[in-house]
Protein backbone atom coordinates (compact mmCIF):
# COMPACT_ATOMS: atom_id res chain seq x y z
CA UNK A 1 0.00 0.00 0.00
CA UNK A 2 1.49 3.24 -1.11
CA UNK A 3 2.00 5.82 1.60
CA UNK A 4 2.27 8.72 -0.86
CA UNK A 5 -1.12 7.81 -2.29
CA UNK A 6 -2.56 7.54 1.21
CA UNK A 7 -1.37 11.00 2.23
CA UNK A 8 -2.64 12.63 -0.96
CA UNK A 9 -6.06 10.98 -0.77
CA UNK A 10 -6.38 11.76 2.95
CA UNK A 11 -5.61 15.45 2.49
CA UNK A 12 -7.96 15.67 -0.52
CA UNK A 13 -10.86 13.98 1.28
CA UNK A 14 -10.53 15.89 4.53
CA UNK A 15 -10.25 19.20 2.71
CA UNK A 16 -13.37 18.47 0.67
CA UNK A 17 -15.25 17.35 3.80
CA UNK A 18 -14.26 20.50 5.68
CA UNK A 19 -15.41 22.57 2.72
CA UNK A 20 -18.76 20.77 2.81
CA UNK A 21 -19.25 21.49 6.49
CA UNK A 22 -18.25 25.13 6.42
CA UNK A 23 -19.18 26.63 3.06
CA UNK A 24 -21.93 29.21 3.19
CA UNK A 25 -23.58 28.60 -0.17
CA UNK A 26 -25.66 25.43 -0.26
CA UNK A 27 -24.85 24.48 -3.84
CA UNK A 28 -21.11 24.67 -3.32
CA UNK A 29 -21.45 22.54 -0.21
CA UNK A 30 -23.42 19.91 -2.12
CA UNK A 31 -20.82 19.80 -4.90
CA UNK A 32 -17.89 19.48 -2.51
CA UNK A 33 -19.89 16.71 -0.82
CA UNK A 34 -19.62 14.83 -4.14
CA UNK A 35 -15.88 15.51 -4.25
CA UNK A 36 -15.45 14.18 -0.70
CA UNK A 37 -17.13 10.97 -1.74
CA UNK A 38 -14.75 10.59 -4.65
CA UNK A 39 -11.99 10.76 -2.05
CA UNK A 40 -13.62 8.07 0.08
CA UNK A 41 -14.03 5.86 -3.00
CA UNK A 42 -10.31 6.35 -3.66
CA UNK A 43 -9.67 5.09 -0.12
CA UNK A 44 -11.70 1.99 -0.88
CA UNK A 45 -9.61 1.39 -4.01
CA UNK A 46 -6.44 1.80 -1.95
CA UNK A 47 -7.68 -0.75 0.56
CA UNK A 48 -8.33 -3.31 -2.16
CA UNK A 49 -12.14 -3.28 -2.10
CA UNK A 50 -12.63 -2.11 -5.68
CA UNK A 51 -16.22 -3.27 -6.00
CA UNK A 52 -17.29 -1.26 -2.97
CA UNK A 53 -15.50 1.80 -4.34
CA UNK A 54 -17.32 1.53 -7.66
CA UNK A 55 -20.67 1.01 -5.92
CA UNK A 56 -19.91 4.06 -3.77
CA UNK A 57 -19.30 6.25 -6.83
CA UNK A 58 -22.38 4.88 -8.53
CA UNK A 59 -24.77 5.25 -5.59
CA UNK A 60 -23.49 8.26 -3.71
CA UNK A 61 -22.33 10.51 -6.51
CA UNK A 62 -24.63 9.32 -9.25
CA UNK A 63 -27.77 9.13 -7.15
CA UNK A 64 -27.60 10.68 -3.67
CA UNK A 65 -25.71 13.81 -4.76
CA UNK A 66 -28.12 14.38 -7.66
CA UNK A 67 -31.06 13.92 -5.25
CA UNK A 68 -29.60 16.44 -2.82
CA UNK A 69 -28.98 18.94 -5.58
CA UNK A 70 -32.51 18.55 -6.93
CA UNK A 71 -33.97 19.04 -3.45
CA UNK A 72 -31.91 22.18 -2.94
CA UNK A 73 -33.36 23.49 -6.19
CA UNK A 74 -36.93 22.63 -5.26
CA UNK A 75 -36.74 24.25 -1.82
CA UNK A 76 -35.11 27.55 -2.68
CA UNK A 77 -36.47 30.84 -1.47
CA UNK A 78 -33.95 33.22 -3.04
CA UNK A 79 -32.03 33.04 0.19
CA UNK A 80 -28.92 31.23 -0.95
CA UNK A 81 -26.83 31.41 2.16
CA UNK A 82 -27.54 29.48 5.26
CA UNK A 83 -27.75 32.10 7.98
CA UNK A 84 -26.89 31.01 11.43
CA UNK A 85 -23.99 28.85 12.36
CA UNK A 86 -24.18 27.17 15.70
CA UNK A 87 -20.78 27.32 17.38
CA UNK A 88 -21.61 24.83 20.09
CA UNK A 89 -21.67 22.20 17.37
CA UNK A 90 -17.97 22.86 16.74
CA UNK A 91 -17.19 22.30 20.41
CA UNK A 92 -19.10 19.01 20.48
CA UNK A 93 -17.43 17.81 17.29
CA UNK A 94 -13.94 18.58 18.61
CA UNK A 95 -14.76 16.85 21.88
CA UNK A 96 -15.98 13.73 20.08
CA UNK A 97 -12.87 13.77 17.89
CA UNK A 98 -10.66 13.97 20.94
CA UNK A 99 -12.46 11.06 22.57
CA UNK A 100 -12.19 8.89 19.44
CA UNK A 101 -8.47 9.65 18.99
CA UNK A 102 -7.83 8.75 22.62
CA UNK A 103 -9.63 5.44 22.17
CA UNK A 104 -7.73 4.64 18.95
CA UNK A 105 -4.29 5.49 20.25
CA UNK A 106 -4.74 3.66 23.52
CA UNK A 107 -5.71 0.34 21.92
CA UNK A 108 -2.69 -1.95 21.71
CA UNK A 109 -3.68 -4.39 19.01
CA UNK A 110 -4.05 -1.96 16.15
CA UNK A 111 -0.49 -1.30 15.05
CA UNK A 112 0.04 -4.28 12.77
CA UNK A 113 0.81 -3.94 9.09
CA UNK A 114 -1.56 -5.11 6.37
CA UNK A 115 -1.41 -8.72 5.29
CA UNK A 116 -1.45 -9.65 1.63
CA UNK A 117 -5.05 -10.54 0.92
CA UNK A 118 -6.23 -12.37 -2.19
CA UNK A 119 -7.91 -10.02 -4.63
CA UNK A 120 -11.57 -9.59 -3.90
CA UNK A 121 -13.19 -10.50 -7.20
CA UNK A 122 -16.72 -9.61 -8.14
CA UNK A 123 -17.42 -13.30 -8.69
CA UNK A 124 -16.55 -14.02 -5.07
CA UNK A 125 -18.79 -11.23 -3.80
CA UNK A 126 -21.62 -12.53 -5.98
CA UNK A 127 -21.25 -16.06 -4.66
CA UNK A 128 -21.15 -14.89 -1.05
CA UNK A 129 -24.17 -12.64 -1.57
CA UNK A 130 -26.20 -15.50 -2.97
CA UNK A 131 -25.23 -18.13 -0.40
CA UNK A 132 -24.39 -16.74 3.04
CA UNK A 133 -26.00 -13.32 2.72
CA UNK A 134 -29.13 -14.11 0.75
CA UNK A 135 -31.53 -13.12 3.54
CA UNK A 136 -29.98 -9.66 4.07
CA UNK A 137 -30.06 -9.22 0.29
CA UNK A 138 -33.79 -9.91 0.12
CA UNK A 139 -34.44 -7.67 3.11
CA UNK A 140 -32.48 -4.82 1.52
CA UNK A 141 -34.48 -5.29 -1.66
CA UNK A 142 -37.70 -5.05 0.31
CA UNK A 143 -36.40 -2.00 2.18
CA UNK A 144 -35.46 -0.24 -1.06
CA UNK A 145 -38.89 -0.95 -2.55
CA UNK A 146 -40.58 0.41 0.57
CA UNK A 147 -38.34 3.51 0.52
CA UNK A 148 -39.10 4.08 -3.17
CA UNK A 149 -42.84 3.85 -2.71
CA UNK A 150 -42.74 5.87 0.50
CA UNK A 151 -40.70 8.68 -1.02
CA UNK A 152 -43.05 8.84 -4.01
CA UNK A 153 -46.12 9.03 -1.80
CA UNK A 154 -44.58 11.75 0.34
CA UNK A 155 -43.82 13.94 -2.63
CA UNK A 156 -46.85 13.32 -4.82
CA UNK A 157 -49.21 16.21 -5.35
CA UNK A 158 -52.34 15.81 -3.30
CA UNK A 159 -55.44 15.27 -5.37
CA UNK A 160 -57.68 18.27 -5.19
Amino acid sequence: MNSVAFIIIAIFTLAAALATATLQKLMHAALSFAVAFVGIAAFFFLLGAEFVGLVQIFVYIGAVAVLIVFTILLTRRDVEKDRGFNWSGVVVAIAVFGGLILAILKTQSLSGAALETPALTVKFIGEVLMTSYVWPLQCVGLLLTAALIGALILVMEEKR
Partner: protein
Amino acid sequence: MSISVDQIFVIGKRWLLSWLTGAPSWVTQIGSSLVNIFALLGVFLTLFALMSVLERKILGRIQNRYGPNRVGPFGLFQPIADGIKMLIKEDIVPARADKIVHFLAPVMIAATAILALGIIPYGRGMTPFTIDGGILFFFAVGSTTELAVFMAGWGSNNKFSMLGAMRAIAQMISYELPLIITVLPVVMIVGSLTPDTIVAAQDGYAFGLVPRWFVFTPWGAAAFVLFFVSGLVESNRTPFDVPEGESEIVAGHMTEYSGFKYATFFMAEYIGMFAITGLAATLFLGGWHAPLRALEFVPSYVWFFAKLSALLFVYIWLRGTLPRTRVDQIMNFAWKFMLPMAFTCIVAAAVWHYAGRGLCGWLWSLAVIAVTYFTLSILLDTRRKFAPRTYRFAE
Protein backbone atom coordinates in the same frame (compact mmCIF):
# COMPACT_ATOMS: atom_id res chain seq x y z
CA MET B 1 2.63 -12.42 -40.60
CA SER B 2 -1.02 -11.78 -39.84
CA ILE B 3 -0.38 -12.29 -36.15
CA SER B 4 2.26 -9.59 -36.05
CA VAL B 5 0.03 -7.11 -37.93
CA ASP B 6 -2.65 -7.86 -35.38
CA GLN B 7 -0.29 -7.26 -32.47
CA ILE B 8 1.55 -4.34 -34.01
CA PHE B 9 0.44 -1.84 -31.38
CA VAL B 10 1.25 -4.17 -28.49
CA ILE B 11 4.73 -4.75 -29.91
CA GLY B 12 5.12 -1.02 -30.46
CA LYS B 13 4.24 -0.27 -26.86
CA ARG B 14 6.64 -2.91 -25.58
CA TRP B 15 9.41 -1.38 -27.69
CA LEU B 16 8.63 2.07 -26.27
CA LEU B 17 8.72 0.73 -22.73
CA SER B 18 12.01 -1.05 -23.36
CA TRP B 19 13.67 2.36 -23.07
CA LEU B 20 12.78 2.26 -19.35
CA THR B 21 14.16 -1.15 -18.43
CA GLY B 22 16.48 0.04 -15.68
CA ALA B 23 13.92 2.14 -13.82
CA PRO B 24 12.00 1.09 -10.67
CA SER B 25 8.65 -0.60 -11.16
CA TRP B 26 6.47 2.41 -10.44
CA VAL B 27 8.14 4.36 -13.27
CA THR B 28 7.38 1.53 -15.69
CA GLN B 29 3.79 1.41 -14.47
CA ILE B 30 3.28 5.12 -14.91
CA GLY B 31 5.02 4.99 -18.30
CA SER B 32 2.76 2.17 -19.48
CA SER B 33 -0.34 4.04 -18.34
CA LEU B 34 0.83 7.22 -20.06
CA VAL B 35 1.42 5.41 -23.36
CA ASN B 36 -2.08 3.93 -23.12
CA ILE B 37 -3.64 7.30 -22.33
CA PHE B 38 -1.90 9.14 -25.15
CA ALA B 39 -2.75 6.43 -27.67
CA LEU B 40 -6.40 6.50 -26.57
CA LEU B 41 -6.63 10.28 -26.71
CA GLY B 42 -4.90 10.42 -30.09
CA VAL B 43 -7.16 7.85 -31.69
CA PHE B 44 -10.41 9.16 -30.31
CA LEU B 45 -9.79 12.84 -30.83
CA THR B 46 -8.94 12.13 -34.46
CA LEU B 47 -12.07 10.01 -34.74
CA PHE B 48 -14.08 12.86 -33.19
CA ALA B 49 -12.73 15.34 -35.73
CA LEU B 50 -13.40 12.94 -38.60
CA MET B 51 -16.87 12.13 -37.37
CA SER B 52 -17.92 15.76 -37.03
CA VAL B 53 -17.33 16.34 -40.73
CA LEU B 54 -18.60 12.93 -41.86
CA GLU B 55 -21.81 13.43 -39.93
CA ARG B 56 -22.47 16.72 -41.66
CA LYS B 57 -21.75 15.20 -45.04
CA ILE B 58 -23.97 12.18 -44.46
CA LEU B 59 -26.77 14.35 -43.08
CA GLY B 60 -26.39 16.54 -46.13
CA ARG B 61 -26.68 13.55 -48.47
CA ILE B 62 -29.79 12.35 -46.61
CA GLN B 63 -31.25 15.82 -47.10
CA ASN B 64 -30.30 15.80 -50.80
CA ARG B 65 -27.48 18.32 -50.62
CA TYR B 66 -23.72 18.24 -50.35
CA GLY B 67 -22.23 18.58 -46.88
CA PRO B 68 -19.21 20.80 -46.30
CA ASN B 69 -16.96 20.41 -49.34
CA ARG B 70 -14.85 23.56 -49.52
CA VAL B 71 -12.00 22.97 -47.10
CA GLY B 72 -9.60 20.31 -48.38
CA PRO B 73 -10.44 17.30 -50.56
CA PHE B 74 -14.16 16.49 -50.17
CA GLY B 75 -14.25 18.90 -47.24
CA LEU B 76 -12.28 16.57 -45.00
CA PHE B 77 -10.15 19.33 -43.47
CA GLN B 78 -13.30 21.05 -42.13
CA PRO B 79 -12.50 20.10 -38.50
CA ILE B 80 -9.32 22.16 -38.68
CA ALA B 81 -11.32 25.19 -39.78
CA ASP B 82 -13.90 24.48 -37.05
CA GLY B 83 -11.19 24.16 -34.44
CA ILE B 84 -9.59 27.46 -35.37
CA LYS B 85 -12.99 29.14 -35.30
CA MET B 86 -13.80 27.77 -31.85
CA LEU B 87 -10.43 28.72 -30.44
CA ILE B 88 -10.49 32.35 -31.52
CA LYS B 89 -14.00 33.05 -30.25
CA GLU B 90 -14.40 35.28 -27.25
CA ASP B 91 -15.05 33.41 -24.04
CA ILE B 92 -18.14 35.03 -22.53
CA VAL B 93 -19.08 34.22 -18.96
CA PRO B 94 -22.31 35.76 -17.60
CA ALA B 95 -21.66 38.37 -14.95
CA ARG B 96 -23.72 36.75 -12.22
CA ALA B 97 -22.77 33.19 -13.05
CA ASP B 98 -20.96 31.06 -10.54
CA LYS B 99 -17.48 31.20 -12.04
CA ILE B 100 -15.96 28.04 -10.57
CA VAL B 101 -18.97 25.82 -11.25
CA HIS B 102 -19.41 27.32 -14.73
CA PHE B 103 -15.80 26.57 -15.57
CA LEU B 104 -15.66 23.07 -14.11
CA ALA B 105 -18.82 21.72 -15.76
CA PRO B 106 -17.43 21.12 -19.29
CA VAL B 107 -14.20 19.80 -17.78
CA MET B 108 -16.11 17.24 -15.74
CA ILE B 109 -18.31 16.13 -18.62
CA ALA B 110 -15.31 15.64 -20.92
CA ALA B 111 -13.35 13.88 -18.17
CA THR B 112 -16.09 11.36 -17.42
CA ALA B 113 -16.65 10.65 -21.11
CA ILE B 114 -12.95 9.95 -21.71
CA LEU B 115 -12.69 7.85 -18.54
CA ALA B 116 -15.42 5.58 -19.84
CA LEU B 117 -13.30 4.76 -22.91
CA GLY B 118 -10.56 3.17 -20.86
CA ILE B 119 -12.00 -0.29 -20.24
CA ILE B 120 -13.10 -1.27 -23.74
CA PRO B 121 -11.04 -3.96 -25.48
CA TYR B 122 -10.01 -2.57 -28.84
CA GLY B 123 -8.19 -5.60 -30.14
CA ARG B 124 -6.52 -8.81 -29.06
CA GLY B 125 -4.69 -7.80 -25.89
CA MET B 126 -5.35 -4.09 -26.42
CA THR B 127 -7.44 -3.04 -23.44
CA PRO B 128 -6.07 0.19 -21.94
CA PHE B 129 -7.02 -0.59 -18.34
CA THR B 130 -8.16 -3.96 -17.09
CA ILE B 131 -10.39 -3.55 -14.07
CA ASP B 132 -12.16 -6.51 -12.54
CA GLY B 133 -15.53 -4.77 -12.46
CA GLY B 134 -15.03 -3.00 -15.80
CA ILE B 135 -18.68 -2.72 -16.79
CA LEU B 136 -19.56 -1.33 -13.35
CA PHE B 137 -16.80 1.26 -13.74
CA PHE B 138 -18.28 2.30 -17.09
CA PHE B 139 -21.72 2.86 -15.61
CA ALA B 140 -20.41 4.53 -12.45
CA VAL B 141 -18.53 7.05 -14.56
CA GLY B 142 -21.56 7.52 -16.82
CA SER B 143 -23.77 8.33 -13.87
CA THR B 144 -21.38 11.09 -12.81
CA THR B 145 -22.20 12.83 -16.09
CA GLU B 146 -25.59 13.81 -14.70
CA LEU B 147 -24.04 15.84 -11.92
CA ALA B 148 -21.82 17.59 -14.45
CA VAL B 149 -24.85 18.44 -16.64
CA PHE B 150 -26.53 19.88 -13.57
CA MET B 151 -23.45 21.96 -12.79
CA ALA B 152 -23.56 23.34 -16.32
CA GLY B 153 -27.21 24.28 -16.05
CA TRP B 154 -27.03 25.79 -12.60
CA GLY B 155 -23.72 27.55 -13.01
CA SER B 156 -25.04 29.64 -15.89
CA ASN B 157 -27.58 31.47 -13.70
CA ASN B 158 -30.14 31.30 -16.50
CA LYS B 159 -33.66 29.88 -16.28
CA PHE B 160 -33.47 28.25 -19.71
CA SER B 161 -30.24 26.54 -18.79
CA MET B 162 -31.71 25.31 -15.54
CA LEU B 163 -34.82 23.93 -17.24
CA GLY B 164 -32.72 22.30 -19.93
CA ALA B 165 -30.44 20.74 -17.35
CA MET B 166 -33.35 19.35 -15.36
CA ARG B 167 -34.92 17.88 -18.49
CA ALA B 168 -31.59 16.39 -19.50
CA ILE B 169 -31.06 14.83 -16.08
CA ALA B 170 -34.62 13.44 -15.94
CA GLN B 171 -34.10 11.86 -19.34
CA MET B 172 -30.68 10.46 -18.49
CA ILE B 173 -31.76 9.00 -15.15
CA SER B 174 -34.85 7.38 -16.65
CA TYR B 175 -32.86 5.63 -19.36
CA GLU B 176 -30.00 4.57 -17.12
CA LEU B 177 -32.14 1.77 -15.75
CA PRO B 178 -32.89 0.09 -19.10
CA LEU B 179 -29.26 0.65 -20.11
CA ILE B 180 -27.93 -1.24 -17.11
CA ILE B 181 -30.60 -3.92 -16.97
CA THR B 182 -30.08 -4.86 -20.63
CA VAL B 183 -26.42 -5.48 -19.85
CA LEU B 184 -27.39 -7.91 -17.07
CA PRO B 185 -28.31 -10.87 -19.33
CA VAL B 186 -24.86 -10.73 -20.94
CA VAL B 187 -23.12 -10.57 -17.55
CA MET B 188 -25.31 -13.40 -16.29
CA ILE B 189 -24.52 -15.71 -19.20
CA VAL B 190 -20.78 -14.98 -19.19
CA GLY B 191 -20.44 -14.84 -15.40
CA SER B 192 -18.04 -11.92 -15.28
CA LEU B 193 -18.04 -8.13 -15.33
CA THR B 194 -14.71 -7.86 -17.20
CA PRO B 195 -15.06 -6.81 -20.85
CA ASP B 196 -12.12 -9.03 -21.86
CA THR B 197 -13.88 -12.14 -20.54
CA ILE B 198 -17.13 -11.14 -22.25
CA VAL B 199 -15.37 -10.79 -25.61
CA ALA B 200 -13.58 -14.10 -25.08
CA ALA B 201 -16.94 -15.82 -24.40
CA GLN B 202 -18.13 -14.84 -27.88
CA ASP B 203 -15.34 -16.78 -29.54
CA GLY B 204 -15.95 -19.57 -32.00
CA TYR B 205 -18.51 -20.35 -34.64
CA ALA B 206 -21.73 -22.36 -34.35
CA PHE B 207 -22.12 -24.89 -37.21
CA GLY B 208 -18.72 -23.63 -38.34
CA LEU B 209 -20.42 -20.66 -39.96
CA VAL B 210 -22.41 -18.39 -37.65
CA PRO B 211 -20.29 -16.55 -35.04
CA ARG B 212 -21.30 -17.01 -31.44
CA TRP B 213 -22.00 -13.36 -30.86
CA PHE B 214 -24.76 -12.60 -28.40
CA VAL B 215 -26.70 -10.57 -30.94
CA PHE B 216 -27.58 -13.80 -32.77
CA THR B 217 -29.60 -15.11 -29.81
CA PRO B 218 -33.17 -13.82 -29.28
CA TRP B 219 -32.47 -12.29 -25.88
CA GLY B 220 -29.24 -10.81 -27.21
CA ALA B 221 -30.97 -9.23 -30.19
CA ALA B 222 -33.69 -7.70 -27.99
CA ALA B 223 -31.13 -6.54 -25.44
CA PHE B 224 -28.96 -5.08 -28.20
CA VAL B 225 -31.84 -3.05 -29.60
CA LEU B 226 -32.80 -1.81 -26.14
CA PHE B 227 -29.19 -0.99 -25.27
CA PHE B 228 -28.76 0.85 -28.56
CA VAL B 229 -31.87 2.97 -28.00
CA SER B 230 -30.89 3.71 -24.41
CA GLY B 231 -27.46 4.72 -25.64
CA LEU B 232 -29.10 7.11 -28.09
CA VAL B 233 -30.96 8.73 -25.24
CA GLU B 234 -27.96 8.87 -22.93
CA SER B 235 -25.97 10.74 -25.58
CA ASN B 236 -28.85 13.20 -26.14
CA ARG B 237 -29.08 12.42 -29.84
CA THR B 238 -32.08 12.93 -32.09
CA PRO B 239 -34.81 11.70 -31.79
CA PHE B 240 -34.18 12.26 -28.10
CA ASP B 241 -32.32 15.55 -28.16
CA VAL B 242 -34.87 17.52 -26.14
CA PRO B 243 -32.08 18.91 -23.89
CA GLU B 244 -30.48 20.63 -26.84
CA GLY B 245 -33.52 21.26 -28.97
CA GLU B 246 -32.82 24.52 -30.67
CA SER B 247 -36.38 25.47 -31.35
CA GLU B 248 -37.52 24.98 -27.78
CA ILE B 249 -34.97 25.84 -25.24
CA VAL B 250 -32.16 27.58 -27.11
CA ALA B 251 -29.31 25.19 -26.32
CA GLY B 252 -30.49 23.89 -22.98
CA HIS B 253 -27.74 23.60 -20.42
CA MET B 254 -25.14 24.70 -22.95
CA THR B 255 -26.73 28.09 -23.65
CA GLU B 256 -24.25 30.30 -21.86
CA TYR B 257 -21.13 28.57 -23.14
CA SER B 258 -19.20 30.04 -26.04
CA GLY B 259 -16.09 29.17 -27.97
CA PHE B 260 -13.84 26.51 -26.59
CA LYS B 261 -16.15 25.43 -23.76
CA TYR B 262 -18.94 24.75 -26.23
CA ALA B 263 -16.49 22.73 -28.30
CA THR B 264 -15.69 20.76 -25.14
CA PHE B 265 -19.39 19.95 -24.63
CA PHE B 266 -19.62 18.91 -28.25
CA MET B 267 -16.54 16.72 -27.91
CA ALA B 268 -17.87 15.16 -24.70
CA GLU B 269 -21.12 14.24 -26.42
CA TYR B 270 -19.33 12.56 -29.31
CA ILE B 271 -16.87 10.72 -27.07
CA GLY B 272 -19.83 9.52 -24.99
CA MET B 273 -21.30 8.18 -28.23
CA PHE B 274 -18.04 6.37 -29.03
CA ALA B 275 -17.97 4.85 -25.56
CA ILE B 276 -21.55 3.56 -25.74
CA THR B 277 -21.18 2.14 -29.24
CA GLY B 278 -17.84 0.62 -28.25
CA LEU B 279 -19.50 -1.07 -25.30
CA ALA B 280 -22.39 -2.26 -27.50
CA ALA B 281 -19.88 -3.78 -29.93
CA THR B 282 -18.03 -5.43 -27.04
CA LEU B 283 -21.07 -6.85 -25.29
CA PHE B 284 -23.25 -7.91 -28.17
CA LEU B 285 -21.33 -7.88 -31.43
CA GLY B 286 -18.38 -9.95 -30.33
CA GLY B 287 -15.87 -7.15 -29.75
CA TRP B 288 -12.85 -7.65 -31.99
CA HIS B 289 -13.85 -11.07 -33.36
CA ALA B 290 -14.20 -11.57 -37.11
CA PRO B 291 -17.63 -12.55 -38.47
CA LEU B 292 -16.41 -15.35 -40.74
CA ARG B 293 -13.62 -17.84 -40.21
CA ALA B 294 -12.23 -17.04 -43.63
CA LEU B 295 -11.75 -13.38 -42.69
CA GLU B 296 -9.71 -13.94 -39.57
CA PHE B 297 -6.53 -12.70 -41.19
CA VAL B 298 -7.81 -9.12 -40.91
CA PRO B 299 -6.40 -7.57 -37.68
CA SER B 300 -8.70 -7.50 -34.67
CA TYR B 301 -8.74 -3.73 -34.18
CA VAL B 302 -9.90 -3.28 -37.78
CA TRP B 303 -12.96 -5.40 -36.99
CA PHE B 304 -13.65 -3.46 -33.81
CA PHE B 305 -13.51 -0.10 -35.52
CA ALA B 306 -15.56 -1.43 -38.43
CA LYS B 307 -18.32 -2.42 -36.02
CA LEU B 308 -17.99 0.92 -34.25
CA SER B 309 -18.31 2.77 -37.57
CA ALA B 310 -21.36 0.74 -38.58
CA LEU B 311 -23.13 1.61 -35.32
CA LEU B 312 -22.15 5.28 -35.64
CA PHE B 313 -23.52 5.30 -39.18
CA VAL B 314 -26.85 4.05 -37.83
CA TYR B 315 -26.76 6.86 -35.24
CA ILE B 316 -26.25 9.46 -37.96
CA TRP B 317 -28.91 7.82 -40.14
CA LEU B 318 -31.44 8.01 -37.30
CA ARG B 319 -30.57 11.66 -36.73
CA GLY B 320 -31.27 12.51 -40.34
CA THR B 321 -34.50 10.56 -40.55
CA LEU B 322 -36.53 10.80 -37.35
CA PRO B 323 -38.27 13.84 -35.79
CA ARG B 324 -37.83 14.77 -32.17
CA THR B 325 -40.02 13.08 -29.57
CA ARG B 326 -41.77 14.99 -26.78
CA VAL B 327 -40.48 14.86 -23.25
CA ASP B 328 -43.51 13.03 -21.84
CA GLN B 329 -43.39 10.53 -24.70
CA ILE B 330 -39.74 9.85 -23.85
CA MET B 331 -40.56 9.24 -20.18
CA ASN B 332 -43.54 7.01 -20.97
CA PHE B 333 -41.44 4.98 -23.37
CA ALA B 334 -38.73 4.44 -20.78
CA TRP B 335 -40.83 3.46 -17.80
CA LYS B 336 -43.72 1.67 -19.46
CA PHE B 337 -42.06 -0.16 -22.33
CA MET B 338 -38.31 -0.38 -22.06
CA LEU B 339 -38.09 -1.35 -18.43
CA PRO B 340 -40.49 -4.35 -18.68
CA MET B 341 -38.79 -5.46 -21.93
CA ALA B 342 -35.39 -5.22 -20.23
CA PHE B 343 -36.58 -7.47 -17.41
CA THR B 344 -37.98 -9.88 -19.99
CA CYS B 345 -34.55 -10.13 -21.58
CA ILE B 346 -33.12 -11.38 -18.29
CA VAL B 347 -35.84 -14.03 -18.03
CA ALA B 348 -35.33 -15.00 -21.69
CA ALA B 349 -31.57 -15.34 -21.17
CA ALA B 350 -32.15 -17.60 -18.18
CA VAL B 351 -34.62 -19.70 -20.20
CA TRP B 352 -32.09 -19.96 -23.05
CA HIS B 353 -29.38 -21.08 -20.68
CA TYR B 354 -31.39 -23.66 -18.76
CA ALA B 355 -33.09 -25.17 -21.80
CA GLY B 356 -29.64 -26.10 -23.09
CA ARG B 357 -28.14 -23.47 -25.34
CA GLY B 358 -29.31 -25.12 -28.54
CA LEU B 359 -32.38 -24.84 -30.75
CA CYS B 360 -34.85 -25.66 -27.96
CA GLY B 361 -33.55 -22.85 -25.76
CA TRP B 362 -33.58 -20.48 -28.75
CA LEU B 363 -37.25 -21.11 -29.46
CA TRP B 364 -38.35 -20.90 -25.84
CA SER B 365 -36.60 -17.59 -25.20
CA LEU B 366 -37.99 -16.22 -28.46
CA ALA B 367 -41.44 -17.22 -27.22
CA VAL B 368 -40.89 -15.38 -23.90
CA ILE B 369 -39.84 -12.19 -25.63
CA ALA B 370 -42.61 -12.33 -28.23
CA VAL B 371 -45.33 -12.87 -25.62
CA THR B 372 -44.16 -9.91 -23.53
CA TYR B 373 -43.77 -7.67 -26.55
CA PHE B 374 -47.28 -8.34 -27.81
CA THR B 375 -48.80 -7.99 -24.35
CA LEU B 376 -47.11 -4.63 -23.89
CA SER B 377 -48.20 -3.46 -27.34
CA ILE B 378 -51.80 -4.27 -26.53
CA LEU B 379 -51.67 -2.72 -23.06
CA LEU B 380 -49.94 0.47 -24.15
CA ASP B 381 -51.98 1.05 -27.27
CA THR B 382 -53.10 4.65 -27.44
CA ARG B 383 -54.74 4.66 -30.80
CA ARG B 384 -58.27 4.26 -29.54
CA LYS B 385 -58.00 6.78 -26.75
CA PHE B 386 -57.78 9.89 -28.91
CA ALA B 387 -60.42 11.38 -31.18
CA PRO B 388 -59.52 11.73 -34.86
CA ARG B 389 -57.37 14.77 -35.51
CA THR B 390 -59.06 17.94 -36.71
CA TYR B 391 -57.04 20.75 -38.20
CA ARG B 392 -58.39 24.22 -37.63
CA PHE B 393 -56.40 26.14 -40.20
CA ALA B 394 -54.90 23.68 -42.64
CA GLU B 395 -57.28 22.51 -45.34
